[in-house]
């Protein structure tokens, strides 16, 4: 019983300490969501096979939100003629890179870890996009 009480207190304390970070991160995500119109995304692409995955990954890194939103935007981008590799980079970066959450991640998990994780996730999103597109085209 004493051990359970200790576990409860420790967990509550830990969660309370991270509350300002969580609220701050959600506020930032909400701000980005309100400031960037959905029509903005398609105007960023240049129909360039090499540049578009990079742009897709960059847009996906800045934005945040439910993956469902990224599927909907990604589907619309495909309909507008944006390449599959660019859309895939966008989808993957959306969920794996978090520029908006970076300050929160830095405080919680360490600055170096957060920066390295986000930079490598950005690069990996382009690699994942290229590999996925090649395999899908072969199949």
């Amino acid at each position: 019983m004493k051990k359970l009480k200790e576990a409860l207190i420790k967990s509550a304390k830990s969660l309370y300490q991270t509350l300002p970070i969580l609220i701050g991160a959600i506020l930032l995500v909400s701000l980005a969501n309100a400031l960037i119109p959905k029509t903005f995304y398609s105007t960023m692409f240049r129909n360039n096979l090499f540049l578009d995955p990079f742009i897709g990954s960059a847009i996906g890194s800045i934005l945040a939100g439910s993956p469902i939103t990224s599927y909907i935007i990604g589907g619309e981008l495909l309909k507008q003629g944006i390449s599959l590799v660019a859309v895939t980079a966008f989808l993957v970066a959306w969920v794996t890179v978090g520029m908006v959450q970076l300050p929160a991640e830095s405080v919680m998990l360490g600055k170096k870890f957060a920066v390295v994780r986000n930079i490598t996730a950005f690069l990996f999103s382009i690699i994942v996009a290229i590999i996925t597109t090649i395999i899908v085209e072969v199949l």
Partner: protein
Amino acid sequence: MKQNKNKAWLFLLIVSIIYAIMGVMKQDMLMPAIQFFLSVITKIIPIFILVFVLMVITNYFTNQKYITKHLGKDSGLRGWLLSIGAGLISTGPIFMWYPLLKDLKKLGVKKRFIAAFLYSRAVKPALIPLLIVYFGLTYTIVLIVVMIIMSVFQGLTVEKLSEV
């Protein structure tokens, strides 16, 4: 510890100042942002409770020895399966999981597993049908397999680079 606590409140203060500036300069954007914030808060309450329960379980059952065995340096394949599997089934926004990951990191979980967990969260089993509707079955299967493999590479790369 105290420094981290101060940083957390400073972060919230800075974000609040940004909102105050927004309130003056772009009033029409402020309400949609606040509405979105409230909708997210409402949605994450159940996840918040889940994270709390998991934290209590972690603090109650696990100790340094257990963590070292299952998610420490020599945990091998078991560590990868645990971290990627947990990432796949975890729900909600990424930042909800930071407190638990912070506690696990303190207990000795390797950085590679934390990075793999965060990367594999990209694949959400509940959202797979939607992904199939938008992009097709072949694309969905290939993307998921590539993402799972890549989460191992991501974990190894992050650990290597963050220790330089």
